[in-house]
């Protein structure tokens, strides 16, 4: 979906069944989730720049309606897996800011005990399977989660996210073939922010129509979605999820979105491959939070004051998470050697036979 398409009049999805059933409280909660993601990341950026974190920081700012809208549809047997731009999905599945922030600070209290970092958040208890650093590498894993659901006879699906830069990886194409061949309940959600790092979609992908249309080659359903409209994200994703749950048929959804920052904070060219006008247009006209906030005020279920209060509380929560992370203990050298093998961690009889480690 091009900028021109986004700027043209859009359909209204507020009336779709899956949105009609939303209570005012639930709608406000969805807005709150998006705002929490943004405030969390703004705080992360501040302290990343202050030297509190190591490695990469891939910000999700601008894309919040994608994770929030799609994950809001998940039930107890629906699972989520994504790539390295994973903070939004983590908060959307219900991970708390403290453990996520502490992970980026490399602290023991982090969701992965400081062993994964920004790109590797996990919460299996919330059906969240990462957080994966290699472009496209998570796409067969998402397939496997769907395989497991079907094998175990559970009515659920897997939402497997990838960026537009991942669609040319071989593992993704292998996954599409297997998904359709084996009738697996997986939905590949292409979060299309227009750029694979610094290379635009036109310069990186050969396609007819749109990226999702590649699904036709695998006899798979597909759709395109405006990722700045939370109602549209929910309405269209719901259809794909029901198809997966009830018919075990996979889909590709291409959700147009935009990241306000670079590929990562270390992206030195973030303002060179995109024009300032382009970035400004998205911020002014397509910001998912601004649009949904306006919408709820129009619907008469939210006031400006309430919205500001939500924003203020989210900022305070994020600041508190930074303080929690800062004050948490760092891992110790013995911590380096745990969580390598299940058997050694659990001190099973098998773990006592032979040497598993070779430090000395």
């Amino acid at each position, binding site marked *: 979906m091009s900028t021109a398409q986004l700027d043209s009049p859009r359909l209204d999805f507020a009336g779709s069944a899956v949105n009609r059933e939303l209570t005012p409280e639930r709608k406000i909660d969805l807005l709150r989730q998006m705002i929490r993601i943004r405030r969390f990341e703004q705080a992360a950026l501040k302290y990343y720049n202050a030297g509190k974190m190591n490695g990469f920081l891939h910000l999700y700012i601008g894309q919040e309606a994608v994770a929030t809208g799609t994950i809001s549809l998940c039930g107890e047997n629906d699972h989520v897996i994504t790539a390295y731009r994973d903070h939004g999905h983590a908060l959307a599945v219900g991970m708390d800011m403290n453990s996520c922030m502490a992970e980026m600070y490399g602290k023991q209290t982090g969701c992965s005990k400081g062993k994964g970092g920004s790109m590797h958040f996990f919460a299996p208890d919330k059906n969240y399977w990462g957080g994966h650093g290699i472009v496209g590498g998570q796409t067969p894993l998402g397939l496997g989660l769907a*395989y497991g659901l079907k094998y175990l006879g559970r009515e659920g699906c897997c939402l497997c996210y990838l960026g537009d830069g991942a669609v040319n990886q071989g593992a993704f194409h292998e996954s599409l073939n297997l998904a359709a061949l084996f009738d697996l309940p997986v939905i590949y959600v292409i979060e299309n922010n227009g750029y694979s790092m610094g290379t635009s979609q036109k310069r990186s992908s050969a396609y007819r129509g749109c990226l999702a249309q590649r699904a036709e080659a695998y006899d798979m359903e597909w759709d395109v979605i405006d990722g700045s409209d939370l109602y549209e994200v929910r309405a269209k994703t719901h259809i794909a999820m029901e198809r997966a749950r009830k018919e075990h048929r996979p889909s590709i959804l291409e959700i147009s979105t935009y990241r306000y920052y670079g590929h990562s904070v270390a992206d030195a060219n973030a303002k060179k491959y995109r024009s300032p006008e382009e970035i400004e247009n998205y911020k002014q006209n397509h910001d998912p939070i601004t649009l949904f906030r306006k919408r709820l005020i129009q619907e008469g279920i939210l006031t400006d004051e309430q919205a500001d209060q939500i924003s203020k509380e989210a900022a305070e929560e994020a600041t508190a998470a930074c303080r929690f992370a800062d004050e948490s203990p760092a891992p110790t050298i013995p911590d380096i050697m745990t969580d390598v093998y299940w058997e050694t961690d659990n001190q099973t009889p098998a773990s006592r036979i032979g040497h598993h480690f*070779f430090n000395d």
Partner: protein
Amino acid sequence: MSRTLTYREALREGLDEELARDPNVVLMGEEVAQYNGAYKVTEGLWKKWGDKRIVDTPISEAGFIGMGIGASMLGIRPVMELMFWSFHSVAFDQLVNNAACVRYMSGGLINCPIVMRGPANGGTGVGATHSHIPEGLFAAFPGLKVCAPATPADAKGLIKAAIRDNDPVYVMENTLLYGTVGEVPDPSEGDHVVPLGLADLKRVGSDISLIAHGRSVIHALAAAETLQAEHGISAEVLDLRSIRPLDVDAILATVRKTNRVVLVDESKPFGGVSAMVATLIQEHAFDYLDAPIKRVCTLDAPAIYSHHIEHLQLPNPSRIVEKVLTIK
């Protein structure tokens, strides 16, 4: 009750028993079901267990191996066949990033109880791309476990241990061993499981230790007979069986006993399994050595095709005998 099975039959029996024991065990791979297995290891299992438990996959290693890893995170226990371990290269990201690292990167929240199995050997005239021997390569990744059975009994016992293990285990078999015959305990005598990490002294000797794994064990045993008969040298043969975890105690015990050692390893010399074993010996048993550690590895070039000399590139009994005779 004594009975003999081929290595192939022993593997199949082990797979069959684990399929019966645990309903979450699933065999997957190219031609494993309806074709009965490219090397007939899985012959008859599809007929017995059906489509749900024995799954033919397309030629799509990154796809189906990643799929198995993902399914294992939900508690499925996929046993995946690589028609050749040489095909690991097209699924390397899945094998080393996802299978080996996901537990660590999640701070121990996830484990991947998968088994990858298939032949990993040279010597069959299929050229360099099909003759890789990657046990040392994968053992170098913490989070992975690797074993390489040499006999039918060990093949059955190790595949069963691998399936029951809650970490990813990569089982390296050998096409040239599939047809070999050996005694395997009868199921009526109890569950035959060979734990990972336990080496096996295949021959007792006093003058020199030959330490090997996989088919090299068979060569070492043949060489030991020649050394005894023609040179009066008593060689001990230690079969590592498992590469990681590794039975370091057994390695050091045999070196301390014989004081001389030749490592036999179908890997290439640079960074192979024997390179690691040599390091362990010099670090922990240096004072017991009466001679430098020597190695017989595959000659250090890509695998040659020509059947006239292919077997000479690999470890073989005569190369082992020659190497032993160089030790004073």
